[in-house]
């Protein structure tokens, strides 16, 4: 008998029930009031059932609320029997939604939690209040998720979405409005909250959407008296104002190095990065940006700045190569308000001679060496004029056509037209009497001369 009397008392102290607001537990007591819930709205309340005794409690089951409007929405464990160790807890959520065709008034239900300890009971209460009518005005539209879609808005500007909350009932209602989520959505600070709306009256307010750099899609929630409406919007990154691609010189020739920079007509709204690309109409691997040995360099602009850096520098150097054609500079990797493509043309030119020398050090041979380039790839025709020590021409100029040699050399050439040419003339007699030579090289753009090369 003693055992039978003591046992229920010990069980009764094992489980305790708390409401939970996400941070704190509050003892639930004998009843819990959900407060006012608008018709058509729902309200969830989280509860903790906690084992405060020294030993485990078995077969803990959260019962189904007995009463209209209340449901067991979730159990953070099993719907079936659960075991709660000492000091362990089980979370569950009770939802109140007004039943269909329900009347305004107070609703109640009983909730029972059973286990091998004494059962816990809780009375659930909620007051169903008239729901306000919420209207959204253009240019905002109804989103597919049942929420409100703001018009897509350029970063740097603001969109407004106008709402009204009407009370079509015969009694005043209290309206609480909140906006949570991305900070790009802002409710007006002047809005009285909560506000009282008289019968057949309405209040209006506007939610402001201001997108920021770095985020494209935004989400928030408008809550009016417990009714939630997703808010969605997209921020549009404005295209970069069309940069001007500027060169240290607009007149360029082969075998030159120049610098390129970029200027903006207006500051960039957001930080932007992209690529500056260099393309060539022909084949010449020596046409490249020198920093990085590449034809593509990154560029960037800071938010609010009109200064463009290329590969981290104010400008970039590039080579014009040794092939006639068109160098094209383009931008990629970011939207641009216009086409910034800029071209430079390298015109065909006579052969450029970088270095030339003549040698008579090999017996029976006169050797001539020329380093240069032919940006037309048509070299071959040459003329050699020899002079004696007195400066008199020796015989007539000797014509030679090395076109086949150059064609073979240039076939498949990918690195430009630079060449090192060695020409040898077999000679009989005293070769030291030949003092100088002048070489004329001709391509499709005209002739070039070496000047007098002294044999040494």
């Amino acid at each position: 008998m003693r055992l039978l009397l003591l046992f229920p008392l010990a069980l009764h102290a094992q489980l305790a029930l708390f409401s939970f607001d996400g941070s704190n537990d509050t003892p639930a007591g004998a009843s819990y009031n959900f407060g006012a819930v608008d018709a058509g709205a729902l309200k969830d309340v989280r509860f903790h059932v906690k084992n405060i005794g020294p030993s485990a409690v078995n077969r803990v089951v959260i019962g189904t609320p007995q009463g209209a409007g209340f449901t067991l929405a979730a159990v953070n464990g099993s719907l079936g029997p659960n075991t709660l160790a000492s000091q362990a807890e089980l979370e569950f959520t009770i939802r109140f939604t007004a039943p269909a065709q329900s009347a305004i008034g107070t609703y109640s239900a009983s909730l029972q939690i059973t286990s091998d300890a004494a059962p816990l009971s809780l009375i659930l209460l909620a007051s169903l209040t008239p729901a306000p009518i919420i209207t959204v005005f253009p240019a905002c539209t109804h989103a597919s998720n049942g929420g409100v879609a703001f018009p897509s808005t350029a970063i740097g500007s603001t969109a407004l979405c106008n709402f009204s909350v009407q009370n079509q009932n015969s009694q005043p209602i209290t309206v609480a409005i909140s906006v949570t989520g991305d900070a790009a959505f802002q409710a007006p600070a002047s809005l009285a909250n909560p506000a009282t709306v008289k019968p057949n009256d309405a209040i209006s307010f506007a939610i402001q959407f201001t997108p920021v750099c770095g985020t494209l899609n935004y989400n928030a929630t408008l809550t009016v008296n417990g009714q939630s409406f997703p808010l969605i919007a997209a921020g549009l990154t404005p295209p970069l104002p069309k940069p001007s691609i500027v060169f240290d010189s607009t007149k360029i020739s082969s075998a030159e190095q120049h610098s390129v920079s970029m200027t903006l007509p207006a500051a960039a709204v957001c930080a932007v990065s992209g690529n500056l690309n260099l393309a060539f109409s022909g084949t010449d691997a020596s046409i490249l940006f020198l920093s990085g040995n590449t034809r593509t360099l990154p560029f960037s602009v800071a938010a609010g700045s009109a200064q463009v850096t290329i590969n981290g520098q104010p400008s970039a150097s590039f080579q014009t190569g040794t092939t006639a054609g068109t160098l094209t500079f383009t931008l990629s990797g970011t939207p641009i308000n216009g086409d910034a493509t800029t071209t430079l043309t390298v015109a065909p030119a006579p052969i450029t001679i970088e270095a030339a020398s003549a040698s008579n050090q090999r017996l029976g041979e006169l050797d001539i060496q020329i380093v240069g380039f032919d940006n037309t790839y048509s070299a071959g025709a040459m003329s050699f004029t020899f002079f004696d020590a007195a400066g008199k021409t020796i015989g007539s100029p000797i014509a030679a056509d090395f076109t086949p040699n150059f064609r073979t050399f240039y076939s498949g050439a990918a690195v430009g037209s630079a060449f090192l040419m060695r020409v040898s003339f077999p000679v009989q007699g005293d070769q030291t009497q030949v003092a100088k030579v002048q070489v004329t090289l001709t391509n499709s753009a005209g002739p070039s001369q070496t000047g007098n090369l002294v044999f040494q």
Partner: protein
Amino acid sequence: MKLFFFLSICAWAQLEQPRIGVMLDSSGVARPIFGVSASVTRGDALVNGVTSMACARRTCAAKTAHAIVTWDASRQTTQPAPDAPALFAFSKDAVYIYCAGQLTRNGESVPLNVTGEILAMRFAAGAFEFAVRRDDGVWIVRDNDVAIAAIADATGPVILLRGGLLFGSGDETVLRRADASEVRFPIHADAFIAMGEGYVQIRSGSASYALRIATETVFQLPEAP
């Protein structure tokens, strides 16, 4: 008077890609540089992990962490060396290496008596000349500290050329000819590297330039990404 005449119909031409020399890129890779002034391309890596390098007309020598690598068109040789920077000089038939306080000729030790920090050396007219930094400035000396000249305003690297020298002076690079005439380039030099016949590489931060000695012109070299 001796007779001579040409066999013009037998004249023949040989064509190849011109080569400016060898550069040491910012990642420590020795690479051949092809082309003409201001229009060059980089060739494939010749030696990796290079800390010091110099090239003459036909021969190059490079110092890696623990070896000296020398090469020409026909062969490459490697020999162990202390972990220290190296300077190089070339004669017709030998490569001279100054490393960790020792001067060697083709691997054989050469006696040397020079006071100060040796910045550069050259082999000219049968004798060595050194650029040395001392408390009282930078000097060009021969063995046993025989002074040849002072480089009054040299504050940076020095390289001794045939018929002149190149040195860093503040944010300028100065080419001084044997007749004392000078050309100044607005480039802050961190290091000079003999690229081969007639060209010197100037390292300046992450950029590299080539100075063509004959024309006293400078152009930028393509650097590694």
